[in-house]
């Protein structure tokens, strides 16, 4: 491994036709971290991941995977769940997992043993000898996920892993990602669902329009936006706008405004002095969702939709 980085990318560029789908993306994924690549649909997340894995070659820039300039030299130590799930329909679940392990250097017999254990643990023990075509979509997706970790990879790359899963399986997947991180693996996953990223990511990058717009921790992202004050006066109907900061807007029976740089005390004093009182008051930190919208721009999110 190159230093403490499991994955690095420097100035990655990929063009499809005349369009620069990925436009100079830099990434540095610390070893042992859960790293999220966030972005609206069509931002270039999947293309970036495919370049990092060596499925496609970048037009410009360099990348390393576990210290190797040629990603496939590290393929035995990498697990991958692609965005478009794919398994051989005629294969049995246990064989499919063992096969994916064998591609990454795991002995077939050991692969079958681990596959049985993993299927049992995932509540799919009964389906071990079922052909993939007979499994439900969610079950097949779980089988593929197990196949991507059966060889206990050092780096696990998951492209939109939560899409298509029901809430129970989403939670199961979150637990699996954390367990893999606890085992020592580095997890790199793409998503456009912020709640998962906020709960899981140690660090994240936001990509939009093929460019990296942000890199840092979840807290760093949330800190990009000031905290919000939610204030409810004693008499909700009273006109108190003149006493509040300029950006104050109505929010139900109360008001919402940005926490002033010098704190809330001065504003509160003015409100109390004016006789409006305090029925409710909270200071809220913005969620990752707001930070994401702030970073990529509301328009980009709408366009992507």
């Amino acid at each position, binding site marked *: 491994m190159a230093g403490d980085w499991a994955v690095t990318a420097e100035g990655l560029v990929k*063009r*499809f*036709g*005349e369009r620069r789908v990925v436009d100079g993306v830099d990434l540095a994924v610390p070893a042992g971290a859960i790293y999220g690549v966030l972005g609206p649909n069509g931002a270039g997340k999947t293309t970036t991941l*495919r370049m990092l*894995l*060596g*499925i*496609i*070659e970048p*037009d410009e820039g360099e990348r390393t995977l576990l210290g190797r300039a040629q990603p*496939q*030299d590290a*393929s*035995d130590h*990498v697990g*991958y769940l*692609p965005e*478009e*799930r*794919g*398994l*051989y*329909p*005629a*294969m049995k679940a246990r064989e499919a997992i063992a*096969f*994916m392990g*064998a*591609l*990454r*250097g795991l002995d077939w017999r050991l692969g079958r043993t681990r596959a049985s254990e993993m299927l049992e643990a995932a509540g799919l023990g009964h389906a071990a000898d079922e052909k993939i075509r007979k499994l439900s979509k969610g079950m097949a997706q779980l089988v*593929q996920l197990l*196949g991507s970790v059966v060889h206990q990879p050092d780096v696990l*790359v998951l492209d939109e892993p939560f899409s298509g899963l029901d809430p129970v399986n989403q939670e199961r997947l979150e637990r699996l990602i954390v367990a893999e991180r606890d085992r020592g693996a580095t997890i790199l996953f793409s998503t456009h669902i912020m709640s998962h990223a906020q709960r899981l990511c140690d660090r994240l990058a936001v990509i939009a329009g093929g460019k990296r717009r942000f890199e840092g921790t979840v807290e760093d992202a949330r800190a990009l936006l000031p905290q919000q004050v939610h204030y409810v006066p004693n008499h909700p109907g009273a006109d108190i706008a003149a006493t509040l900061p300029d950006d104050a807007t109505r929010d139900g029976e109360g008001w919402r405004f940005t926490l002033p740089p010098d704190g809330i005390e001065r504003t509160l004093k003015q409100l109390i002095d004016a006789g409006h009182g305090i029925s409710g008051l909270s200071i809220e930190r913005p969620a990752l969702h707001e930070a994401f919208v702030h970073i990529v721009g509301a328009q980009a999110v709408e366009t992507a939709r």
Partner: protein
Amino acid sequence: MTRFQRQLRQTLTIARRDFIATVFTPIFLLFLFAPLIMSSFGAIGGLGAANAADGSSDKQRMVLVMPLDEARLVRAADEQLRATFPRDARPPAIVVVADPVDPRGQLQRRDFDVSAVMQGPLDRPAIFYAAGNRRDARYLAAVADVALRRHATGEARLSTPVIERVSVSTPSQGGQKTAAFFAVFGIFFLTLFLSGQVVGTMAEERNNKVIEVLAAAVPLESVFLGKLLGMFGVAVLFVAFWGTIITQVGQFLPADLASQAAQLVPAVGLGWFALLFVAYFTTAYLLLGAVFLGVGAQASTMREIQMLSLPITVVQVGMFALSSAAASRPGTWIATLAELFPLSSPFAMAGHAANRPELWPHAAALAWQLMWVSIFITVGARLFRRGVLQSASSKPAWKRLFARG
């Protein structure tokens, strides 16, 4: 583990998957016994056609319109000459009409078909034949000539031959050429049957989206080679199965047929020839398979794959025609061309083994052919990466070079 070892392991993993996925299906039994089904239909059709042909030839006659004593001379001469023909190529039987009749009218008889009519005297016979039976007319002329000669010598044979069968140890030119043709045809027949299957094998990965998983784990060249080897394993199983059966059946061949087969002595000797046949079947399969796999991988639907079957057959027949020409003209420019052109090289070199005793050209040819297998696989994988996985740049490197300038 070195990169080569890892890629070899990955290649064999894919080969194993494809082999198992193909062999352990009910459809494979249909494939395995296809020749039996095909030959059964062929036998039934052939039997019917033979019966029809035999029936018509049984009804065909040659008619002699002449006095009985002259006809007797002709019959004796016919008996002598008829024995020189193979059983299935003998002229029709002779019928004698002693009464004076119109010989042309005999050709219109309804009780049997008449191919030719000869009317005496023997020193100046008039021979009439129906269209398409000129050979029978010429035969009757020869019979008349022999009959007259025998009559002139008092029907005594002027020559009393002693005929002895001798085993020949040196291979005959004809036997070598026949062996060459059989080698070319044998490899063509097997590859025609087997290598075309490779064309659709990437479709499964594309349709099931498994290709993304494979491409992330394994270099595409290994994926292609693995699939090729997997299908080659299926072909070997097929050949081994039918080879065993044919070998066992061969033991029961009539001695006459077996001795004819023994005449097919290739120039390099039987042992080397068998070995080279296997080697050239392998390279022929891999070469054609690599091309078909590369082309088939570009097809995205079953319809497109089916459309490819015609050009594939045309390519194979073309290679067979070129190699057959080479086998029958060893040492000519066409033979050299066929031996050098990658896709026809295995066929032509199998023929070369039957015609020429040197072994070193085969080592060079096998290396040459394997080099082309790797070239075809590399090109196929690159085309797949560029076209299907969309790894292509917006412009080719040379265009970008000019654009920068």
